[in-house]
């Protein structure tokens, strides 16, 4: 049954956990979701079901701590699935807020408020109008300096939060990207005009000694 139900868990920033399942194998049935967090005394039934075609297809539950969630899904008479996992294994951090930019010569320091739990990777991506791809820089806190920039150019910046696999496992989700912000000569800009990239692009032939 587990393969049929194919439960999917997302832990939204240790605030709310969403568990969804594929109910198509049990048409017309309201499956029941019972759960217990390691800090709970007893099990409880879901109080906030997600409905699909007016039948239960998931549950939202509050889970504020780094703990183990045990849940079972039944069709009223038969136990279809039972599972226990650390909810941290399915963490999706919230995206960075209040990004702050500080220019100093050809470098920029991007800061934002750190999330209240550890072993995260804060990723800043940036590109100038002349770059085809984003360039990434990561740090274990949201205080990342990127140097080698040209104050003359207009740059796009965005940020997100990822988890360290050695601390959370391979099944987590990166946060959504923050909004893209634009910077030029140390000032915030509304936008950067996208360039026709490399109208004149010359690969310098060099000799390798």
């Amino acid at each position, binding site marked *: 049954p587990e393969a049929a139900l194919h439960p999917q868990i997302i832990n939204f920033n240790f605030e709310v956990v969403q568990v969804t399942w594929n109910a198509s194998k049990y048409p017309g049935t309201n499956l029941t979701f019972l759960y217990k967090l390691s800090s709970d005394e007893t099990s409880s039934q879901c109080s906030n079901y997600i409905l699909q075609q007016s039948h239960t297809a998931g549950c939202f539950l509050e889970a504020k701590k780094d703990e183990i969630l045990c849940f079972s899904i039944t069709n009223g008479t038969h136990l279809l699935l039972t599972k226990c996992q650390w909810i941290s294994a399915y963490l999706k951090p919230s995206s960075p807020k209040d990004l702050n930019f500080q220019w100093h010569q050809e470098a920029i320091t991007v800061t934002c408020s750190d999330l209240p739990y550890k072993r995260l990777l804060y990723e800043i991506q940036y590109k100038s109008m002349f770059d085809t791809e984003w360039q990434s820089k990561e740090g274990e806190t949201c205080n990342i300096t990127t140097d080698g920039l040209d104050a003359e*150019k207009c740059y796009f910046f965005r940020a997100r939060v990822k988890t360290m696999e050695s601390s959370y496992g391979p099944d987590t989700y990166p946060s959504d990207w923050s909004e893209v912000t634009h910077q030029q000569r140390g000032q915030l800009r509304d936008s950067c005009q996208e360039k026709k990239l490399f109208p004149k*692009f010359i690969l310098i032939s*060099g*000799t390798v*000694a």
Partner: protein
Amino acid sequence: GESGYAQNGEFEDAELDDYSFSCYSQLEVDGTQHLLTCAFDDPDINSTNLEFEICGALLNVKCLTFDKLQDMYVIKTKKFLLIGDSEIYVKLGGKNITSKKLNIVEIVKPEAPFDIRVIYRKGANDFLVTFNTSHSQKKYVKELMHEVAYRQEKKENDWMRVNLSSTKLTLLQRKLQPDAMYEIKVRSIPNANYFQGFWSEWSPTFHFRTPEITGRMDP
């Protein structure tokens, strides 16, 4: 030390030659095999019957003996535990004559970066420098700091240096001499606080010429 060795001698006995030696490690240099290289600090030492041995912080064995290659002593193995100190012994006829405690993860010398290229971006009035490193595919020493050095050719010690953790850098055209021949190279050093060590060798040098005129950037 600059050349990439950790060194201090332990036995101060005046009668003995100076058997002080230095070592560096290279992890996952051949698949999962690591390399440990040691050499006497005194290149003129007569090392004919001298042997090296490492003990401690090894997997399932107590000690390993080095192979000798000219005046270098080398071990290629998967048996480094990478946790804790080891002791390295210099032996003469099976008898220890000097030894030194060291930690394999603190004497790491990365492999040299390679494939350095420069692309002139006319519209952007800059030079895009890219290079490659074998360490991005490794499990252990993944985080490196790179140092890019560039200068106008034939200008002796006029190297400009930039430190970066990525493998892409832009040099601004307005900061370089027009119509001049430049050379550029890069090297790496471990950048995580667990793995430490020394600068790698420099990459091969790449030469490039700057355009004649310094144009304004497209608005």
